[in-house]
């Protein structure tokens, strides 16, 4: 049984404050995993620890069976992981066009399904704004660009932190459709979002974090049966 991603008892700290207390979960190829929890429970920190943006004090992260805990962020990304950060991470001095160009690449299998044009077709709004700087975009447009910038790297694992925040309902639906397409094409995803209904329909695994600990780790059916409890954890 080979996992795509395996996170084992991560402990992460910001300075002195201990945020993750042994987070473990794993993700199979092609699966979508949702990371749920209230504000401040450590979802973003978990993602950052996976990516090496936060250095865990202990614990391991393995990707495709390889221990990547000690690799630099860019080396992990090079193994075909893409990241849409919370807050979008726009470059203030690059245009929309450049955001996409600078990121675009075929993945390690040589696939280039999500190329520049396809992303623009998916988000026609961006096409009209090609020569604007990233920070001149509206909030939602920035979000689209952030997702687009992740897609053009043709990832095997896509990590989305609050990717639908600030999007209009129609666009949000489109994004979910895109994610579903991505998933169907065999790409794995980790999604942080607050819309449980959607996550329920989309994801194969659900991990609930409370104060930096995994309190529930469920598959789709288990979620169904424990829905109320999960909602309790999320404060719905």
């Amino acid at each position, binding site marked *: 049984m080979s996992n795509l991603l395996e996170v084992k008892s991560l402990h992460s700290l910001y300075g002195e404050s201990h945020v993750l207390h042994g987070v473990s979960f794993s993700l199979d190829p092609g699966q979508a995993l949702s990371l749920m929890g209230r504000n*401040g429970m450590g979802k973003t920190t978990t993602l950052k620890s996976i990516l090496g943006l936060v250095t865990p004090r202990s614990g391991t992260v393995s990707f495709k069976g390889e221990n990547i805990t000690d690799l630099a962020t860019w080396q992990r990304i090079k193994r075909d992981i893409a990241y849409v950060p919370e807050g979008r991470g726009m470059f203030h001095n690059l245009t929309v066009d450049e955001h996409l160009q600078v990121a675009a690449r075929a993945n390690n299998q040589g696939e280039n399904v999500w190329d520049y044009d396809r992303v623009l077709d998916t988000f026609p709004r961006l096409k009209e704004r090609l020569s604007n700087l990233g920070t001149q*975009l509206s909030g*939602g447009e920035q979000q689209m660009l952030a997702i687009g910038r992740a897609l053009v790297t043709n990832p095997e694992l896509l990590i989305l932190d609050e990717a639908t925040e600030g999007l209009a*309902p129609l666009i949000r639906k489109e994004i979910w459709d895109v994610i579903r397409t991505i998933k169907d094409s065999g790409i794995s995803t980790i999604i942080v979002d607050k819309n449980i209904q959607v996550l329920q329909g989309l994801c194969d695994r659900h991990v609930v974090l409370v104060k930096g600990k995994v309190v529930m780790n469920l598959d789709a059916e288990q979620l169904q049966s424990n829905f109320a409890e999960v909602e309790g954890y999320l404060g719905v």
Partner: protein
Amino acid sequence: MENNVILETEGLCKYWDGLKALDDLSLEFYDNQLHGIVGPNGAGKSTLLNMLCGHYKPTSGKILHRGESISSIKPFEFARRGIGRSFQKTNIYNNTTCLENCCVAVQRLMGGSFNLFRSRYSQKMLDEIATQALEKVGLGLRRDHIASQISYGEQRQLEIAMVLATSPEVLLLDEPMAGMGHEESQLIIELLSRLKKEYCIVLVEHDMDAIFELSDQLTVMVDGQHLVTGSVDEVKEDPRVKEAYLGQGDEVY
């Protein structure tokens, strides 16, 4: 309940070299009402808000505050007139406590900002008002935490607390619920439904549940153009709105 027009726009336009981010918008915002604004991404909602608070200068058109044109006054004077705003992108004082964040806001009303000698800690009342603002948004427990070290959602709450602390009469809120958890959102919704009895609130939000629940008036914008303004029910049923913004209503999104 009396419904005065507090804020008004007349033929407001904002062009970003060639792009009409906002085109000929005329709206009225009433006291003691919550005016929701929705529209697809890039419709010009934030742009509108940014002009209402003086952050951007209109390309043309007028903004009237209690009947008086204020399109040409300085940004800080908008706030002095009681027009407070929160930002779409979190915009707080990162390195100090939540309390201190709100104190800055409260102090504008309390005065003494040019007092070079009097200690900033000397007036209890200032602290109290600031604390109340924090408690209103449910951040009471985070009072003495450093703002950069609370979570994103909490920062959003702080964002609102700061606006409240300035005791505005108009509240311009740009996606205050974005990134907030359910419980916190619920808290804000409750808060806003209380506040709208005292303030004129302009709310931009993509969270439809919240917008529908809260709005007394709802404006839909598309591509910088005004599409429709009316009560929630009127707007919900408008086919153009469904097409441009909401979708057919059968999605769970």
